[in-house]
């Protein structure tokens, strides 16, 4: 049972345009959501996060939107740059007992120059 889903395995966007990466979840108990970026042969690196009590968080070119009623979050990258090409994982925190993070399967973003 995949509690965190990234239904688009890949996405191609032209440089300068907006990239929108989507993530859906099923567990309403998640209290925190994070996006990580992963380059080949490296571990994931933290990008941006949002608490479940917020609906938007912005950091430079990156904005995360949370729609709790739809159990959906999205990452917007504007403007997209070739260096943004990577695999993006969304993760959700389950605050029951120990903090456990559930990751999606990732979306590979390719920004075309």
């Amino acid at each position: 049972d995949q509690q965190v889903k990234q239904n688009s395995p890949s996405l191609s966007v032209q440089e300068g345009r907006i990239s929108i990466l989507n993530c859906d979840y099923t567990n309403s108990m998640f209290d925190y959501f994070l996006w990580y970026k992963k380059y080949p042969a490296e571990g994931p690196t933290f990008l941006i996060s949002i608490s479940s009590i917020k609906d938007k968080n912005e950091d430079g070119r990156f904005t995360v939107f949370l729609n709790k009623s739809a159990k959906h979050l999205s990452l917007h990258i504007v403007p997209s740059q070739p260096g943004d090409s990577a695999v993006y994982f969304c993760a959700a925190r389950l605050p029951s007992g120990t903090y456990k993070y559930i990751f999606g399967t990732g979306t590979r973003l390719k920004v075309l120059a």
Partner: protein
Amino acid sequence: GAGVSQSPSNKVTEKGKDVELRCDPISGHTALYWYRQSLGQGLEFLIYFQGNSAPDKSGLPSDRFSAERTGGSVSTLTIQRTQQEDSAVYLCASQGVGETQYFGPGTRLLVL
């Protein structure tokens, strides 16, 4: 360096052999996670250490997998009698104050 390090970076072993994977977390981080990423899959939670508390082992896929964390710092993930389905990238992450996890580069395990 100040980041999370893992060793070895690559490991090729024969089916049935035991392997040990090492993680050196960021100094001072009390939480440490192990994940596994199989080909085309997301990050699968394996085990979580927090300070001196008993670890959360609920993600370990079988009793062939075990992990320990010595002195609240270095962690070792051991896989006994490896199987071909154990082939994956094993990632370690440490976490201090806050929700951000800092990942190591991973160990790529190939079981022949």
